[in-house]
């Protein structure tokens, strides 16, 4: 199979776009530019082989519906930045690391292991009091937590630009 090579130019362009998007949305990239560019090479490579930008540090199945949670930015990014200061790959980091005040270090994997994936509904609503009945369903973006009440989730998350399929029914 002949796979076109991922050029330095494509990586540079990817880097600029990712950095601009991140900063516009209140995220920061790892200040180690070479490290980040290698991750971008991985993202572009995954886009080439799977058709979507699966996380470079996790094994993708190649089946999009099984990999939705690890399409970059993954469902685990925000929680990991909050708890550990960095996402699993160390592509996105918190302010302290971005500004060089803290060093980035590897963190534990938050994604459930193969055998436990897809077993639990992502959101369990445990309530003893009756839920009010809403005139519309409420959808939650699994990447950034944005909520909206409408018949269908939006095509693209207006906050983080995640695609429609990353939404889950919340209420």
């Amino acid at each position, binding site marked *: 199979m002949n796979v076109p090579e991922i050029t330095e130019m494509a990586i540079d362009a990817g880097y600029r776009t990712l950095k601009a998007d991140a900063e516009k949305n209140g995220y920061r990239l790892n200040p180690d530019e070479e*490290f980040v560019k*290698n*991750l971008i*090479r*991985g*993202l572009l*490579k*995954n886009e080439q082989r799977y058709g979507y930008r699966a996380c*470079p*540090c*996790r*094994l*993708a199945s190649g089946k999009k519906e099984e990999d939705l949670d690890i399409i970059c930015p993954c469902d685990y990014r925000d929680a990991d930045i909050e708890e550990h200061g960095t996402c699993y*790959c*160390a592509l996105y980091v918190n302010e302290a690391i971005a500004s060089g005040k803290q060093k980035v270090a*590897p963190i*534990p*994997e938050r994604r459930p*292991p*193969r055998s436990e994936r897809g077993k639990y509904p992502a959101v369990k609503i445990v309530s003893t009091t009756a839920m009010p009945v809403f005139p519309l369903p409420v959808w939650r973006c699994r990447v950034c937590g944005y909520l909206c009440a409408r018949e269908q989730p939006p095509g693209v998350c207006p906050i983080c630009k995640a695609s429609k399929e990353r939404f889950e029914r919340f209420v």
Partner: protein
Amino acid sequence: MLYALSTCQWCHKTKVLLEELGIAFDYEYVDLLEGKEQDSAMDSVERWNPSGSFPTLVIDNKRAIVGFREQEIREALAA
């Protein structure tokens, strides 16, 4: 034995560290395997590291170090 992904930068750092230390080691880029070969590599990874994450470094078939834990790797291999 180092189980790694070809696109993962913590895996890359682990591999570079092992090379620097001058250790003889085998490695497998699990993402470059296909079908049954990949499944069986994943089964091996999970035996040592139930979360199935990368890098997983198995030392002498005795213990595993999960992730680029530099200090721990250095100590384990200095012994």
